[in-house]
C-alpha cells in the first residue's frame, strides 16, 4: 500500500547463496509436487490416444482422416507448421538474447531450449503421419544408393526435410553443450545410477579455466549458427506454400509472416510452461514475476509484428491483380471457415492487448489462460492457411467444398500435445530445467552492479 516508495521488483534476489541455488534446482530432479505426476499421466493418456489413432490410420490408410480430393492436406500439415513455429522462441531466448546480453533470460532459457528440441521432434512426427506410405519416408532424404536415385531438389518439401534436420541437430547440440556445467553439478550431488548417468553426460567437466574458455567459445559459435537456421527453417516451411501456385498460398510476404507467427506462438508457449514449471517445481525464486513481465511484453511486441504482417498479407491480396486470391480471401472471411478465421484474427491480434495491462501481466491465472488462447489462435492461423485454399482454388469444381477433419485426425493432433508434454516432463526430471551456473552468473553480476554502480 506504500505507493510513494514503490520499490522496483527485481528479476532475481541478489542475496541467494550459490549452494541454495544448487539445492533448489536439484530438488526439482527429485521430488516434484503431485501435480507433476498428474500432468505426466494426463500427457501419457493423450499420447496413447494419438498412438491408437495413428495405428488405425496406418493399418487402414489415410482415408480414415476424412481427407479427400481436393482437401489433400489437413490438420497434419497445419499442426506440423504449428510445432515448427513453437520451436522458434527457444532459439530466440537462448541464442538471440544471449548474443545481445539480456541476462534476464538466464533462469528460463533452458526449458525454452528444450521446448525447441521437443517441438521439432513433434513436428517431425507429423511429416511421417501425413505421408501415405510412411514406411518409404527415407526416399525423401538424399542418401547415397546404388541406383543414383536422388530426391527432387526443386521441391520445397525436400528443403524442409534438410532444414529441419539441420535445425534439430544443432538445437540438440546447443541444448546439450549449454547444460554441461550443470550436469557436472548434478554429478557431484548424485548417487547410484544417476551418478553414472550424469558423469557420462558431463564429459569430465572440472570447471577449469581452459574448459570454461572452450565452453564459452563453442556455446557462442553454436548460438550464432542457430539464429540464421531458425529464420531459414520457418521461411522454408513458408515456401511450401509460397512456392506453390495456389491462391491464398502464393504470397511473397509468407516467409517473414511465418517467422513472426513462429516467434509469437513460441513466446506464448514459454509463458504457459513458465507458469507450469514455476508451480510444479516451486521455482518462485528463479522464475520471478518481473521475468514473466518481460516475456509478456516481448510477446506483445511480437504479436504486433505478426498483426502487421497479417494485415500486409490481406491488403496485398486485396489490392493485388490476382482476383482468385482475393476471392479466396473473401471466402475465408465469409465462407464455411468464417468462424475459425475470425476467431484466429481475434485471438491473434486483439487478445494480446490484454498484455498491455500491468495488472493482468501480474496475474498468473490470467496469463495462463491468455497464453493458451494465443496459441490456440496461432494454431487456427495455420489451419486457416492450409485448408480454405483447398475449398476455393482456381478450379470451379473445388468451390464450396466443405471439409471437416475426422476424429482420427483430431486424435492424432491431440496426441501430439501429449507426446510433447511427456518428453518435456521427462526432460525436466532428468535435466535441471533452470540453468544453475547461469543463474549464479546473473546473481553475481547483479550484486556487482549494486556494489559498483555504473557511471551514469
Amino acid at each position, binding site marked *: 500500500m506504500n505507493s510513494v516508495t514503490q520499490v522496483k521488483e527485481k528479476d532475481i534476489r541478489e542475496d541467494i547463496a550459490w549452494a541454495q541455488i544448487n539445492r533448489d534446482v536439484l530438488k526439482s530432479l527429485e521430488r516434484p509436487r503431485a501435480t507433476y505426476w498428474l500432468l505426466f499421466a494426463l500427457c501419457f493418456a493423450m499420447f496413447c490416444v494419438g498412438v491408437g489413432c495413428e495405428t488405425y490410420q496406418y493399418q*487402414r*490408410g*489415410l*482415408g480414415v482422416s*476424412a*481427407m*479427400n*480430393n*481436393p*482437401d*489433400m*492436406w489437413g490438420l497434419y500439415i497445419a499442426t506440423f507448421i504449428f510445432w515448427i513455429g513453437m520451436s522458434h522462441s527457444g532459439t530466440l531466448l537462448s541464442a538471440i538474447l544471449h548474443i545481445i546480453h539480456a541476462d534476464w533470460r538466464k533462469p528460463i532459457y533452458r526449458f525454452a531450449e528444450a521446448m525447441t528440441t521437443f517441438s521439432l521432434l513433434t513436428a517431425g512426427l507429423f511429416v511421417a503421419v*501425413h*505421408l*501415405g*506410405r*510412411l514406411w*518409404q*519416408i527415407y*526416399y*525423401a532424404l538424399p542418401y547415397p544408393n546404388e541406383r*543414383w*536415385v*536422388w*530426391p*527432387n*531438389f*526443386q*521441391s*520445397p*518439401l*525436400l528443403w524442409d*526435410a534438410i532444414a529441419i534436420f539441420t535445425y534439430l541437430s544443432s538445437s540438440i547440440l546447443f541444448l546439450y553443450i549449454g547444460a554441461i556445467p550443470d550436469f557436472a553439478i548434478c554429478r557431484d550431488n548424485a548417487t547410484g545410477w544417476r551418478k553414472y548417468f550424469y558423469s557420462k553426460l558431463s564429459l569430465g567437466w572440472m570447471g577449469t579455466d581452459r574448459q570454461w574458455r572452450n565452453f564459452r567459445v563453442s556455446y557462442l559459435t553454436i548460438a550464432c549458427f542457430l539464429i540464421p537456421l531458425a529464420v531459414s527453417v520457418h521461411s522454408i516451411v513458408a515456401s*511450401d506454400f509460397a*512456392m*506453390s*501456385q*495456389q491462391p491464398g498460398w502464393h504470397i511473397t510476404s509468407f516467409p517473414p509472416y511465418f517467422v513472426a507467427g513462429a516467434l509469437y506462438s513460441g513466446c506464448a508457449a514459454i509463458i504457459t510452461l513458465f507458469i507450469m514449471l514455476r508451480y510444479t517445481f516451486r521455482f518462485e525464486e528463479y522464475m520471478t514475476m518481473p521475468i514473466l513481465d518481460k516475456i509478456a511484453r516481448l510477446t506483445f511486441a511480437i504479436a504486433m509484428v505478426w498483426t502487421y504482417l497479417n494485415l500486409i498479407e490481406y491488403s496485398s491480396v486485396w489490392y493485388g491483380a490476382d482476383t482468385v486470391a482475393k476471392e479466396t480471401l473473401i471466402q475465408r472471411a465469409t465462407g464455411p471457415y468464417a468462424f475459425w478465421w475470425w476467431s484466429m484474427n481475434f485471438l491473434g491480434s486483439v487478445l494480446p492487448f490484454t498484455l498491455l495491462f500491468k495488472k493482468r501481466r501480474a496475474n498468473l491465472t490470467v496469463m495462463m489462460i491468455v497464453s493458451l488462447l494465443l496459441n490456440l489462435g496461432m494454431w487456427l492461423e495455420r489451419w486457416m492457411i492450409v485448408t480454405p485454399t*483447398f475449398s476455393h*482454388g*482456381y*478450379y*470451379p*469444381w*473445388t468451390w464450396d*467444398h466443405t*471439409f471437416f477433419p475426422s476424429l482420427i485426425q483430431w486424435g492424432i493432433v491431440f496426441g501430439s500435445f501429449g507426446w510433447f508434454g511427456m518428453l518435456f516432463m521427462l526432460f525436466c526430471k532428468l535435466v535441471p530445467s533452470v540453468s544453475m551456473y547461469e543463474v549464479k552468473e546473473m546473481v553475481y553480476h547483479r550484486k556487482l552492479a549494486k556494489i559498483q554502480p555504473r557511471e551514469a
Partner: protein
Amino acid sequence: MSLEQTLNDWTQLRRTHPQPGSHPDLKWAMAIDLDACTGCNACVVACYAENNLPVVGKEKFAAGQAMHWIRVERYWNEADENSPEQGAQFLPMLCQQCEAAPCETVCPVGATNHTADGLNSQVYNRCIGSRYCSANCPYKVRYFNWYNYPEQEKAWPAPLPMQLNPDLTVRTKGVMEKCTFCVQRLTDAKNTARNEGRAVRDGEVLPACAQACPTSAITFGNLSDPYSHVAQKWRLQRVEINKDKQLKDIDESHPGLRGYRILEDLRPYPSIMYLERVRDNQA
C-alpha cells in the same frame, strides 16, 4: 535425376516452358469438343475398366474419395433453362498432361516426371504420398489411394480380380495416381511401330476414353505429326502448345475460333485443347 547427370547438365534442373520441337517426333495431345459431349459418362466407365480403378462405393464417393481419373463435371447455366439440356453443361476433366506441370516440380522424391513423348508420368513405386502434387495441381485431377482398395476394402470381390487389366498394376494404398493417357496402350503401340520400323500411325492407338466416346468428342494423337487429326484440330483453332494466350484471346475478329485450354494463364501449358460449345442460337 542422378547426381552425375545433374552435374553434367545443370540445365536439366531448370524446367523452362516448352519450345516448339521439344518433342520433335512424338507429343501426345488431345482435343475435346464440348459441343459433341453429351455427358453420357461412357469415357468414365471405359477408364474404370481399362485402368483398374476401384469403385469406392457410395460412402467414400460422398466423402470425396472417388478414383475417377476422368470425371464429367456438370455446370448449370440457369439462363439456359429452356434448352434441351435444361441448362446443363458438361466438361470431361482429366489430367491435362501439362508441359510445365506444377505437380512435377514440387514432388519431394521426383515420383512424377515428364516423359520424352510429352506425358506427365507417375512412378507409383517411388511415390511416398506427400500429396504435394495434388495440392499444387490447379485442376485437382490427381487421385490418392486413401485405402488399400484391392485387399482391405475388397473393391474387387472374387471373381472380379479376373477382369483386371493385366497391362498395368493395381495400386496399393498411399500412392498418388492420375490419368496416364492410357500409357500402357501407348507403349504397346510404340513398341509395335518400332518393331516394324515405322512411326506410330495416326489413329493407331487411342486411350480408353476416346475409344469409348459415342460422339467422338475426344480426338487423340501425335501433335508433332502435322497430318494427325489432333494436330489439324489444334491448327484450325490456332491453338499453340507453347503459348499462354491464343489468337482467340488476343484478337476478337475471329468469331469462328473456339479452341481454348483451361487455366492457360497459369502457364502450365496443358496438352488438352477444349472446343467451346456452340449454342443453337449462336449457330
